[in-house]
């Protein structure tokens, strides 16, 4: 058992899988010699050498295209796209190639790869380097989409993603890289498609992802301590496959549900989950389904503006309290 940062967990997770399977290779911009711009891949180049850990040109289409071709023919590539916002310059692979090839070929081809990326806000980088793009991926049939919130989940879910036979989009939250958590020694392997109830509760369910998970947890503590409201907090972890059983089970117990989303409002994962609940658990509900999201605007750069725009602990507390008292 050791305390590890989320950042170091990334390198450990990749190393674990590269050590285990020589077909795992890793490519991206500045990932090798420099250890990544977020320093999340330090040491891999030294450990696994220049043939397995490769710096690329600034050619995101080539990075993802090459990862796909290698995956189709026998390797298990991990590709890094530095910031998730850059998915927009290589979106064809994410939307049209990775996820459709197996289906179109009636099962002839495979695409076992992982795309890792730095996702999310909080670094004062402005509108083109701060987005939370999980929905860009969740909406595409044929992908798997994962977003861990803790170091141990980073390792376990990354290992599961690398061993998964399908294309997995692995969203690391930039504002979590510096956070720490206890991590057991030895191999860690988690399971895609499993949500985690991080705090059991009776009065309402709060569903969160990535950076919003610690905020939802903090809000739940405050709601309990200050307002006597006992919330169950679920870390979705995996958007596809989606663990609807855990979510619907929780709502059947609490009868109220909130989602806390960092992504801009429209067509977020919260909308999907809420619409599932509104269909399948309608008669369990005691009141409106409420989504707490970043407003539907581009992200501002200034610290003070950025801090004001994402869902905060205060906003979650206030919204849950107000809704339940209504």
């Amino acid at each position, binding site marked *: 058992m050791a305390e590890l940062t989320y950042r170091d967990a990334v390198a450990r997770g990749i190393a674990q899988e590269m050590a285990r399977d020589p077909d795992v*290779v890793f490519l991206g911009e500045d990932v090798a010699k420099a250890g990544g711009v977020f320093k999340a891949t330090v040491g891999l180049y030294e450990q696994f050498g220049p*043939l397995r850990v*490769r710096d*690329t*040109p600034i*050619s*995101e*289409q*080539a*990075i*993802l*295209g*090459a*990862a*796909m*071709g*290698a*995956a*189709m*023919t*026998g*390797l298990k*590539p991990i590709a890094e796209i530095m910031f998730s916002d850059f998915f927009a310059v290589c979106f*064809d*692979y994410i939307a*049209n*190639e990775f996820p459709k*090839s*197996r*289906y*179109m*070929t*009636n*099962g*002839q*081809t*495979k695409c*076992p790869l992982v795309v890792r990326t730095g996702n999310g806000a909080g670094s004062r980088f402005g509108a083109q380097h701060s987005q939370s793009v999980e929905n860009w991926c969740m909406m595409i*049939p*044929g992908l*798997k989409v994962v977003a861990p919130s803790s170091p141990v989940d980073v390792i376990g879910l990354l290992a599961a993603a690398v061993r*998964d*036979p*399908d294309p997995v989009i692995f969203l690391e939250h930039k504002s979590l890289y510096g956070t720490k958590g206890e991590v057991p020694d030895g191999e860690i392997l988690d399971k895609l*498609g499993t949500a985690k109830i991080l705090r059991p509760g009776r009065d309402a369910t709060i569903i969160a992802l990535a950076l919003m998970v610690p905020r939802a947890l903090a809000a739940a503590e405050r709601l309990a301590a200050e307002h006597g409201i006992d919330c169950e907090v679920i870390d979705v972890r995996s958007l*596809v*496959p*989606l*663990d*609807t*059983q855990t979510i619907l089970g929780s709502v059947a117990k609490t009868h109220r549900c909130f989602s806390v989303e960092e992504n801009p409002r429209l067509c977020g994962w919260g909308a999907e989950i809420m619409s599932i609940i509104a269909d399948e658990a309608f008669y369990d509900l005691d009141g409106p389904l409420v989504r707490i999201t970043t407003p539907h605007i581009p992200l501002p750069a200034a610290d003070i503006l950025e801090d004001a725009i994402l869902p905060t602990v205060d906003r979650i507390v206030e919204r849950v309290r107000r809704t339940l008292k209504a």
Partner: protein
Amino acid sequence: MSKKPIPAAALNDDIGEETRLELYRSQVNIREAEQRAFDLFLQNLVKGTSHLSLGQEAVAAGFAVAMKKGDLSFCTYRGHAHTLARGVPVEQVLGELMQRDNGLMRGKGGSMHLTSEEHGVMGSYAIIGAHLPIACGAAWRAQYKGHSDVTTCFFGDGTTNIGAFHEALNFAAVWKLPVIFVCENNLYMEYTPIRDVTAVEHPAADRASAYGLERIVIDGNDADVVYRTAMTAYEKARAGKGPSLIECMTYRHSGHSRADPAKYRPEGELERWKERDPIKIYRERLKQFGIGDDAVAKIDADIKRIVDEATEACKAAPNPPMDILTTDVYADGGWAWRN
């Protein structure tokens, strides 16, 4: 090119009779199958879109015959020719065009996505440029694993102006990947002449130097020329000397797709190119080399029979069953995105 017969002593040149007959057979096979696809389309039996390579057969044949087993092909939506050239049965190709259950992908992919992994046809891609980087990845795997196979990536002239072309070429050159990029310059994109929208005369070859590669433009209607160029490129790739970019000048006899009557062509252009029909050229070539009419006639008859039989089999084939609708989205065979 002289049409005089070649002296008997020269018959076994670097290509030789056996390979020449293979090149001929491959071209005729493509021609007949594509012509049949066109006929079936007129009978309303081909559905969706389809993109024929009538007139471009020498490129597909020349490269495929030069390939070894295990070499990989990446094609575009205009990929029937390359798929057939790797030995995929005509029936499976026509079946896919007719969207029947006997199709290569049982109708799930359609004419633009012909794939036969067992023949090394790693897919046909319908987003312009997308497969060039993917081909790099297949070649990277060979390099990484120390395999000797080479990947070939076919695409059109119009594809040279999209970003993925540039990224793939640079990437392949820097990593010295065993991949051959083959541009089939048929002078047109869909309906617009390539010269109207390209800053250089030869959209692929005139850019080779931007990737440190040799400038190669060849007669894409002469299967011998294509074959020789391909052999050189494969040798180079197998020797670890990196990628090649080859521009083959050719022409499509029909429209861009089944929806296109190709009225945008200047008068006489099609006729001029038909004089340089690759199959016509190759029949003469065989004659020059003294290869007998009967060998040729036998191939012609063989192919006709195969295509006829394939046609009948396709007409008799059932539609794909509904239960394949949701199979093979994920590797577990299913499509479940939730529990």
